[in-house]
């Protein structure tokens, strides 16, 4: 699987893809603002990307960088008011999601785009059996008889590797562990075989030992069903294991986008460098690495989104920021083939010698 991911990464870099497959999901110039008393908060500012069938795209960034709002925007679930998608377009195949009315949206959600949430402990209704909750989405989008429905529920629970599915279907969420509940959420999300699955930090709330199982499950099912996955996370380890392409977001904007291999090998944006440097490594912990000792952090915090600096949004925290960074916004451009970034000083920082 890792091999495939690497190949996909290379395919991205060799500008001419062998199969000019049309994207399942195309997001163009998406802007989602929250209108608050202290002004418009630009939670998502001009974000574009495309997603191919069966592909995994990771969106990474710190808390508050707009990755979750991006996900909610795709399903038009941003609470309005105060949030509103101000401009841009989201196309799922031939459907313009932003043009849909309520009824059209309800038909789309759960059938064409699904979402797995961060909190498996509270994402299931505590007073309904999991079988009924799973049955609800099937009843809504498909016409099934009672016995077909029951069979499909058990089939889906088995698909997400819940043992003894018949008995589990009759249980309530509190009788299941966190990992089991997340499996149920995955079953609900994949019940109608959606084109796109959005996984918003699907493993954050889980035990580390269960995290790997859940990820493995998502990747397996994705291969089996050909679902395109958007993985939203702040865990770069997770990204390396599952995604083919990565978008790095900062303060509501896309700052870098690249194939997985390229991003980890040659991060262009200084923020991405900071993120990578802040990952703990075994050598570092044992004091064997060249920069042994303290784990690197990115100084400061994400700026308030209603009060962004005029130039590069990362400038106040960037070790290489200069006058131009503070006054002029860097263009989002292709620094290397298939590798985009918005930075005046791409590549390695000074003094490292590998620029």
């Amino acid at each position, binding site marked *: 699987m890792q091999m495939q991911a690497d190949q996909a990464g290379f395919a991205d870099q060799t500008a001419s893809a062998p199969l000019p497959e049309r994207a399942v999901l195309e997001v163009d110039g998406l802007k989602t603002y929250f209108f608050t008393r202290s002004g418009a908060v630009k939670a998502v500012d001009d974000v574009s990307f495309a997603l191919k069938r069966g592909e995994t795209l990771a969106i990474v960034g710190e808390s508050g960088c707009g990755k979750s709002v991006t996900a909610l925007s795709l399903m038009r679930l941003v609470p309005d008011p105060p949030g509103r998608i101000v401009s841009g377009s989201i196309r799922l195949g031939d459907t313009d999601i932003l043009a849909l009315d309520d009824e059209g949206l309800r*038909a789309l959600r759960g059938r064409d785009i699904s979402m797995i*949430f961060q909190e498996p402990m509270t994402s299931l*209704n*505590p007073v309904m059996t999991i079988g009924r909750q799973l049955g609800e989405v099937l009843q*809504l989008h498909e016409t099934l008889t009672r016995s077909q429905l029951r069979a499909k529920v058990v089939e889906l629970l088995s698909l997400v590797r819940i043992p003894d599915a018949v008995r589990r279907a009759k249980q309530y969420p509190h009788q299941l562990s966190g990992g089991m509940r997340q499996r149920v959420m995955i079953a609900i999300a994949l019940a109608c075989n959606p084109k796109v699955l959005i996984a918003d930090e699907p493993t954050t709330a889980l035990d580390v030992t269960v995290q790997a*199982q859940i990820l493995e499950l998502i990747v397996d099912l994705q291969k089996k069903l050909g679902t395109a996955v958007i993985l939203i996370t702040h865990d770069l380890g997770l990204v390396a294991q599952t995604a083919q392409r990565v978008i790095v977001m900062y303060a509501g904007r896309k700052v870098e986008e690249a194939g997985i291999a390229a991003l980890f090998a040659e991060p262009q944006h200084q923020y991405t460098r900071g993120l990578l440097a802040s990952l703990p490594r075994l050598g570092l912990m044992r004091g064997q690495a060249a920069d042994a000792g303290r784990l690197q952090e990115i100084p400061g915090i994400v700026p308030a989104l209603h009060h962004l600096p005029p130039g590069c949004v990362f400038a106040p925290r960037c070790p290489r920021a200069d006058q131009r960074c503070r006054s002029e916004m860097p263009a989002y451009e292709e620094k290397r083939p298939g590798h985009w970034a918005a930075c005046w000083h791409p590549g390695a920082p000074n003094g490292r010698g590998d620029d």
Partner: protein
Amino acid sequence: MTAIEHGVELERAGASITTRWQGARFMARRYPLGAAGAVILLIFVLTAMLATAISPFDPTLTDSHASLAPLSKAHWLGADFMGRDVFSRIVGGSRISLAVGLGSTLLGCLVGVPIGLLSGYFGGWLDLLVQRVIDMMQSLPLLVTALVMAAALGPSLRNTIIAIAIPLVPSISRIVRSNTLALKEMPFVEAARAIGLSETWIAVRHVLPNTLAPLIVLVTAQFGSAILVEASLSFLGLGVPEPYPSWGRMLSESAAEYMRAAPWLVIFPGMAISLAVFGANLLGDALRDMLDPRLRS
């Protein structure tokens, strides 16, 4: 990893295989007061159901020879000034109390729950309007509102139920609304939206069932106070009229003139009222502890 999972599951399965009866016994041991309340209410309900079979006399039958008869083999709890058997009247009165208690709380729920759900889930100007009306209603005590309503509607069993149900609506809709406000921000509501369910469906099928636990607790307590208010209204002559035997009116008929001469006329109906209300409150308290999500295992 699967071995461990299976182990945990087996253990859980073993722990969860219990019959309803075993569950009830476990709860009774854990909440002895609640069980006592449940037993009291059960006796109360059974009495009301089997009233004609239990009572030795017709509760409306007068007998001049038995006027103010003390406790005896014939009249277990004595007789009133018209010679009506007190025990039979208390048994018969349980029907009235049960009808008023159940009827008014159910009617209160029927009106209050939709108002609370609508107001809490959809909010906006509707919520604002409804809540101000409810504020006004809540500023008056239960008895006072019921009194005004009963006086306006006139004395009858149906009107008594309506008169008591109306002042119950604010507290019922308040508790549903406040729980709805918290519940609608829960991730499972957003998850329900994400699979394409409509807002009305989410409100009725996902939010409402989650408000039931606190509602049941409230309703049990309100059942007790409804019985008390009925007794008070009947005491004041505004409740259930003759010839129905009502505990409250039994008190009012005898309290002034016969309290010293025939204290059983006051003591036994009073005990009946206290016991029914006490039972409802005990059960309500136990239910509150039982259904508290923080204590739920």
